[in-house]
């Protein structure tokens, strides 16, 4: 057991702190593009604080993978309250995919623009009839000369309205069974035949969109990996997405806000923290957050020390993490009582309405990225080696579990 990172890393951290201190006035991040964010993003890349392991040939910093340094970077920017590197679906999902299975042309064409924030991507995965059962998607791409002709509909496409390009799962082999006929296609969002409709959700905002394709024509070479082999690509990305959804650092940050709330708001003359029933609930949540933090350290360590097994520790993160977040937000509401109901333009709002909006958004995350029920299937089948649904369901439940 050794929780220190060693001298090299302390030095790295020191340099980074100095960089942040010097440059923080110019920091401007986010998911959108603008000249200013672009300039900041570029400076971060040059210094190796984002796009760190992307080869120089594709516009990155070209360092070898070092999980500890990645973690230090995330910690220090978060700690300083300064925007770190841009984070969007193009950068975190498409770029690794192109590095893994894209052609050299595709890498050269897309990676630099994406990591520099000049190309914004959206993701075309789920469909109205293909949610948990993603492999049953029906958006089709039919080859017509040198072009794919895409027809169908996607849902849960965040950023669709601001994206330049989409990476999209389509069915190219209609005869093949379920996940065998799927391909991974890239195309521009201004191609004729694309209609975007914002999808208002329970928080009242349109965090997602529906996207409709009608005879959208896409050049033949914009397929990533082999035709019909898009499922494997999509699947690897989904596993990565799951890790993000249960991130205990988010839970810790919200727990700290909850403690602040409990110390500042009062009820019948006493601070909320002095009400034993709320305090007990708060402490229960703190215990759960701590367990998930240490679990996360174990996962990190297992990546640094290949002999360590953290398979199940990783498998449970999404299930536990999203439920925990939802419960934290719920206690925030409960502690405030009627004032926890405030929303929208209500001047009595606390923390910009985060307690209510996050209570709902986290419920969305319990559902999205593989529902809690799918997570439990995965844990029992892949983690505990329990049998899949028997006989008649055999084929189908295998698909359920290969998401």
């Amino acid at each position, binding site marked *: 057991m050794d929780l220190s990172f060693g001298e090299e890393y302390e030095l790295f951290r020191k340099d980074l702190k100095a960089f942040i201190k010097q440059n923080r006035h110019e920091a401007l991040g986010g998911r959108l593009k603008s000249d200013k964010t672009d300039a900041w993003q570029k400076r971060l890349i040059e210094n190796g604080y984002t796009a760190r392991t992307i080869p120089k040939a594709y516009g990155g910093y070209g360092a070898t993978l070092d999980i500890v340094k990645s973690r230090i970077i995330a910690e220090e920017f978060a700690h300083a309250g300064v925007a770190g590197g841009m984070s969007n679906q193009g950068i975190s999902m498409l770029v690794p995919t192109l590095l893994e299975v894209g052609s050299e042309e595709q890498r050269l064409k897309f990676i630099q623009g994406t990591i520099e924030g000049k190309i914004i991507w959206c993701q075309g995965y789920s469909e109205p009839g293909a949610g948990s059962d993603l492999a049953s998607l029906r958006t089709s791409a039919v080859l017509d000369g040198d072009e794919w002709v895409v027809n169908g509909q996607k849902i849960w496409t965040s950023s669709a309205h601001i994206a330049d390009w989409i990476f999209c799962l389509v069915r190219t082999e209609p005869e093949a069974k379920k996940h065998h006929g799927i391909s991974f296609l890239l195309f521009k969002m201004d191609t004729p035949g694309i209609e975007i409709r914002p999808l208002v*959700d329970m928080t009242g905002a349109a965090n997602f969109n529906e996207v409709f394709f009608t005879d959208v024509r896409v050049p033949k070479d914009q397929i990533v990996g082999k035709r019909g082999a898009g499922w494997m690509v999509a699947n690897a990305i989904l596993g990565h997405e799951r890790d993000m959804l249960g991130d205990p650092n988010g839970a810790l940050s919200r727990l700290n806000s909850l403690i602040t709330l409990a110390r500042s708001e009062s*009820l019948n003359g006493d601070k909320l923290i002095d009400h034993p*029933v709320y305090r007990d609930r708060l402490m229960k949540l703190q215990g759960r957050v701590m367990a998930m933090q240490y679990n996360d350290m174990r996962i990190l360590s297992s990546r640094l020390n290949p002999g360590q097994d953290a398979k199940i520790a990783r498998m449970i993160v999404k299930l536990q993490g999203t439920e925990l977040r939802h419960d934290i937000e719920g206690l925030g509401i409960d502690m405030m009582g009627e*004032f926890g109901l405030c*929303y929208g333009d209500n001047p009595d709002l606390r923390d910009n309405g985060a307690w209510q909006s996050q209570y709902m958004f986290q419920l969305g995350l319990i559902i999205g990225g593989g529902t809690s029920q799918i997570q439990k299937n995965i844990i029992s089948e892949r983690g505990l080696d329990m049998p899949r649904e028997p006989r008649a369901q055999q084929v*189908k439940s295998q698909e359920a579990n290969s998401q």
Partner: protein
Amino acid sequence: MEFGLSEEQTLLQDSVQKFLSGEVALDRVRESTKNKNDKAIWQGLVDLGISGMLIPEAQGGVAMGTLDAAIVAEQLGHHVTPSPFISTAVIAPTILSTTSTHNDLLAAIALGESRVGIALGDSIALRHDQGVKEDKGLLSGKATFVLDTNADVFLVAAQNKSIYLVEKDQLKINNRTTIDLTRSTCELLLDNSKAELITSDESVYHQAINIGRIMLAADTLGAAQCMIDQAVSYAKEREQFGRVIASFQAVKHMCAEMTAGLEPCRAMVWYTSHAFDNLPNESEMTTCHCKAHISEIGKFVAKTSTEIHGGMGFTDLVGLHYWFKRIGFNRQLLGSPEMLRSEAAALQGLRNV
């Protein structure tokens, strides 16, 4: 011995249900919340006699019982209906019937000609600078989470638990948005406002809170039942992995757990309503538990039924969030579960007050 709804009550339930599912389907709810205008819906309910259901016959009402009102509240929750029912048709008559000085107002309520806002909750849980004080017959202060922004006149409880009638022009009404757009709540600012004392009998204050809590519990019962119904029905239609998701044991058991939790709440609302009219000794304690317990079950149902809807439950498309938020609103108003349990303990001598 008959523990259940009478034939008349079943008819009442059916007629309200018929009106609400006809006239106030989900698109009407959406429209009404957008316009902040529930007048047409309320007029329809007035036409059914709902506004006068707790008002004596002499004042043009039909003098029904608390269980009847709970049946209506349940239906309103079931259809997430925007309306001033709890304030104007339940709490106001409960207060005003204890005096003979406001028969005109009672008659106007019964006719649907007056809407009475209710500002009683500030003494239950003092959290900020809210609260209203009386000085020489004038009221000053702030009342929060007042039911019905569109009221003509308000019943306001001061910190001494006396209740006053205040005309709309005597105060400033600030609309206050909450998570539940199907209910209009506001803040009232009073500054030496003219007010008419209705009662300084503290028991009236407690009765008014008590019946309000029963109605909120009944509302959650209806809303939660509707969420279960929608979840079961969605699960029977939605296919994933080549079969309806209702055939997955995990989904079935989630629906069974919701049902097992909620079904006893129905009897609990019935009993509590009955106790309000007939069993004064146990009424308040029973009500505290009723609202607290149903709020906890409601929270579980709201979350679980949304999960069963998958991504659809998270969108505005099926509108499930109206029920989710209504249950969330009912949970906090007029006493959160923690406050209610603490009060229940005090009422049976298990907590020193």
